[in-house]
């Protein structure tokens, strides 16, 4: 009996402890359930289409926005392979960012037109690793960019139409001024001639801007089709360098060239690559006050490497990434001579990339600039 009385408080304490554990546990459970609910609501509230994929391309989770974008229910997506529902294909596409992320272990993205849903989308893939660093899951974000694409297309069409319409009146004005300046209709005095020559050079400046805009709008609309043929790049580069001889001599700049002996065949669009060399050499001379401009063409076995370097004013480090963006001209004030609107390098980059080459810039302020680009060799047909 005493024993029982002795045990009683212990039993009470024990019961209390169990009760407390029980309450705490259900509170935790409620908290976890709440967190899951919050996460699910957040997941579904995001306007981008998000899904979670296994590394074998199987969709394990999808949000409402993705279902809406694809016009499918969650049940129709989960458990399926992503290429089946996204692209209606039985294997992943060659530019699949998830496939790339498996190799690179980093974030990958892609801009693509999806014919299945008739939308332009960007697809971003973010790998998720477990505690051991093993790639287990991937977050797949699909954003509808059709509206942006539509606006870009409108802008490109506008630029193309306007620049096209400008050409005719411009050539009429140019012809009128140049006839008077050529004395086709009688003598003119030196002052008149001076004024006309200033007018002419500025009409030519507008013409160049219009031509650049047209080039760019064609490149962006994907309407520029390369006319590739096997050509000797050494001969081409030599001819372009020769055409700049006078300009370089006038500025007392040494124009150097280093080309391999013999020929170096590339499978290229002759006019477009001439434009690339002319643009880069023209730029180099424009931004160099004294010293040299050097053009190198090298055989790198698998590809051809071309370098245009100068001892000019150089580019500040933070300016390099901006070089290839539209309408930028670094140190505008110190660029005499033929003025453009900074589209030359954008066009150059597009042309090199259309040839499946790469282009980059190395430069230091005050120490000159080096532009390097690569081009495919021979008559190899590359598949993208």
């Amino acid at each position, binding site marked *: 009996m005493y024993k029982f009385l002795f045990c009683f408080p212990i039993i009470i304490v024990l019961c209390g402890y169990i009760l407390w554990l029980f309450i705490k546990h259900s509170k935790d459970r409620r908290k976890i359930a709440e967190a899951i609910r919050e996460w699910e609501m957040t997941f579904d509230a995001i306007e981008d289409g998000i899904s979670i994929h296994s590394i074998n391309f199987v969709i394990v989770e999808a949000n409402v926005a993705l279902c809406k974008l694809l016009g499918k229910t969650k049940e129709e997506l989960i458990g399926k392979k992503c290429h089946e529902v996204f692209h209606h294909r039985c294997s992943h596409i060659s530019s699949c960012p998830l496939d790339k992320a498996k190799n690179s272990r980093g974030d990958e993205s892609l801009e693509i037109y999806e014919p299945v849903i008739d939308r332009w989308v960007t697809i971003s893939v973010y790998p998720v690793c477990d505690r051991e660093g093993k790639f287990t899951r991937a977050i797949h974000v699909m954003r509808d960019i059709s509206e942006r694409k539509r606006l870009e297309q409108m802008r490109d069409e506008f630029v193309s139409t306007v620049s096209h319409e400008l050409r005719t009146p411009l050539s009429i004005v140019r*012809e009128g001024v140049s006839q008077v300046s050529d004395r086709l209709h009688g003598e003119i005095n030196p002052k008149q001639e001076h004024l006309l020559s200033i007018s002419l050079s500025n009409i030519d400046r507008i013409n160049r801007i219009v031509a650049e805009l047209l080039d760019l709008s064609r490149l962006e609309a994907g309407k520029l089709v390369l006319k590739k043929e096997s050509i000797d790049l050494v001969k081409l580069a030599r001819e372009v360098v020769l055409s700049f001889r006078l300009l370089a001599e006038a500025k007392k700049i040494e124009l150097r060239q280093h080309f391999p002996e013999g020929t170096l065949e590339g499978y290229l669009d002759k006019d477009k690559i001439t434009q690339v060399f002319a643009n880069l050499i023209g730029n180099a001379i424009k931004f160099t006050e004294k010293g040299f401009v050097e053009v190198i063409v090298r055989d790198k076995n698998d590809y051809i490497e071309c370098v245009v370097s100068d001892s000019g004013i150089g580019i500040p480090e933070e300016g390099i990434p901006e070089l290839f963006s539209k309408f930028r001209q670094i140190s505008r004030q110190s660029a005499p001579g033929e003025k453009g609107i900074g589209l030359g390098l954008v066009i150059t980059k597009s042309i090199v990339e259309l040839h499946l080459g790469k282009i980059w810039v190395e430069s230091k302020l005050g120490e000159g600039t080096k532009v390097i680009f690569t081009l495919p060799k021979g008559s190899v047909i590359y598949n993208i």
Partner: protein
Amino acid sequence: MADKKRLLLVEDEVDMQEMVRMRLEASGYEVLVASDGQEALDKAHQEKPDLIILDIMLPKMDGYKVCGLLKADARYNKIPIIMFSARAQDQDKVTAQEVGANDYICKPFNPKELLEKISNLLQNR
């Protein structure tokens, strides 16, 4: 030179027509003008010019059609034709060749280039 060479200039833009006509006349040519495709064809038939400078975008009938019709006709197919256009796309040059044009020049045109092309074609006749 006994006679002035006669050129037919086909251009629908009045100001452009005037400018090119003055340039050609100053270089010693006699210039006939037409402003649309049909007129170009009629004038070519009536006047048998020594050379035709033909714009591509024309009312009524485009320059390619005019060129094609003239080149298909044995009475006129010896007349050299220079296509003249603001469209500098490669495809236009190819089409110009396909319809039998002898040369092609883009706007904004270089007067020296135009005159050289004209005199070359006239000499080769």
